[in-house]
């Protein structure tokens, strides 16, 4: 449970992160920016997929929508308005996906999200080739990477706050119940489809915003860059490594994996997807509840041995 002390510590960490650009060079800022971006992506992904256990494979679809919206509109609209438009488009797509699949079995949702990025990539390509006549756009903004970084950091804080408040609210309970047993949840009178839809929409809008905020980092944008499936993959593996059912799980997973990914893509640019794929399979096998779930389980077991008798291992397997 987060006490006043933890809140203060957390505020200090965020303050230090916010001040970091004043002490770091361009490489350092770029590195932190990528890291915070993935922490936000993984947290936003886990917001919906963690408790409900509906695996969304569409992260990069929304990310790309955000980035592309900025590339198309950044010259004509003020930057805050561009973000609003991007969020609205993300919301629209999320509602479309959610309304057509979330009332059915989870597997339909997975299938729909699996091909979504490819569909949107092809549609954008088709639109660019046939309507605007160009493929690929240049993106020059008048602010530096530190501004992008601060925006991302703020979004990251908001995402974690949303996750924290949802967990403590009736919504959090409802979500946990849907994840544990959807039929029971429905019998208790929960509007399961509506809860899932709202949360999926929230998660997708955050992911869209991450893409929109990060877009100026590229300066040149084309569909194959912003709809790169590796982004979906990394987000998923980060959230799972840490434990998607816990608030801090995605953060715990994102930091080491981002470091690993940076190192791999620098040293093994051709082989990193093989290594990451194997690592991912290993995580599913060895740590089905993520690192946090693993430690919690063992901690509980240790405590159970210490105070024999009144023990509860009920928290085992809560995340999945």
């Amino acid at each position, binding site marked *: 449970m987060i006490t006043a002390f933890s809140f203060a510590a957390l505020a200090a960490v965020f303050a230090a992160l916010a001040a970091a650009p004043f002490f770091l060079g361009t490489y350092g800022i770029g590195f932190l920016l990528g890291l915070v971006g993935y922490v936000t992506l993984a947290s936003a992904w886990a917001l919906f997929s963690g408790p409900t256990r509906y695996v969304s494979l569409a992260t990069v679809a929304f990310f790309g929508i955000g980035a592309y919206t900025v590339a198309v509109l950044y010259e004509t609209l003020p930057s805050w308005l561009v973000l609003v438009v991007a969020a609205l488009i993300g919301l629209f797509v999320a509602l479309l996906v959610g309304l057509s699949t979330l009332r059915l079995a989870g597997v339909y949702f997975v299938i729909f999200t699996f091909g979504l990025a490819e569909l949107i990539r092809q549609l954008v390509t088709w639109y660019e080739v046939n309507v605007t006549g160009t493929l690929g756009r240049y993106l020059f903004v008048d602010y530096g990477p530190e501004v992008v970084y601060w925006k991302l950091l703020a979004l990251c804080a908001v995402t974690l706050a949303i996750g924290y408040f949802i967990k403590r609210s009736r919504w959090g309970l409802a979500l946990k119940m849907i994840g544990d047993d959807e039929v029971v949840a429905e019998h208790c009178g929960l509007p399961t489809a509506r809860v899932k839809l709202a949360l999926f929409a929230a998660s997708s809008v955050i992911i869209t915003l991450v893409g929109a905020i990060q877009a100026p980092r590229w300066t040149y944008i084309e569909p194959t860059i912003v709809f790169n499936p590796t982004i979906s993959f990394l987000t998923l593996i980060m959230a799972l490594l840490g434990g998607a059912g816990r608030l801090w799980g995605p953060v715990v997973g994102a930091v080491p994996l981002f470091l690993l990914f940076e190192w791999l893509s620098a040293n093994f640019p051709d*082989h990193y997807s093989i290594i990451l794929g194997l690592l991912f399979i290993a995580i*599913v096998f060895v740590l089905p509840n993520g690192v946090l779930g693993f430690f919690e389980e063992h901690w509980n077991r240790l405590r159970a041995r210490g105070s024999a008798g009144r023990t509860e291992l009920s928290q085992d397997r809560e995340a999945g």
Partner: protein
Amino acid sequence: MTLTTTLIAGLVLGGTYALVAMGLTLQYGIARIMNLAYGDMIITAAFAAFVVQALPSMNPLIGLAIVVPGGFVFGYLVYVFLLSPLVKRAPDKATLEVDSILTTFGLLFVIQGVLLVLFGSNYTSYTFLNVPVSIFGTTVAANRLIALVLALTFGLLFYALLTRTRWGTALRAVAVSPQSAQLVGINTDRAAAVAFAMGTALAAAGGTVISMYQTFTATGGVVFTMKALIVVIMGGVGNLLGALTAGLVLGIVETTVSTYVDPGLTLAATYTIFLVVLLWRPEGLFGRRVR
């Protein structure tokens, strides 16, 4: 293009889709594995066929005799080493579904990575029997006709195996109810392994057929998985004839869209069909509600 040409091109494409969708419906319907790496298995077979046909005094048709059994073995190994532990560990169907989705999603990146290292990211193709044949008043390339014939032969062969043999009946029993199948003495674990391997063999056949008349790339697996999944859902999970019909329908719709509207919108057409099926009959056009 005339209407007949479009129709024949659609049938060729649809026959291939039907073939690969049958494999996927075996994997999902009987082995209960949602295999997201399926399309990448198809692409792997396409590359394997590409390598085999380049050998001296070889052609893709003889290549089938190598690639298809190879697919069977590969599928069997993947099931035994990668998926069977998950099946044994899973407390319920939902957990298995999530675990198998995640594992095969990881496998997708492994296979794709290996293909990229071996063959690069360029579009690959080879020419085989690219001679015009006249049929129903239009001309079609001979390789496409062979593709259609092969797809239908394989499809019907597997259908006969499943419906006319004792062994196929056992597999279908597992599809209907894994628990009851055990009661009548069917080894469900082995049935699942065989069904998964057979599914991969069909993917291999599909990949070889595709390589005869289409270009393919190491990163193209997702689209094939997607199309096969949509055909499976349209036809009803586990329903072979449903998959056959739905595959042909999808092929014709896609060819029509790419001929008369725009080739860049074929996946959009596929998704539109998927959306309609989801909203109208999520249990499939020919399926019963079993889940």
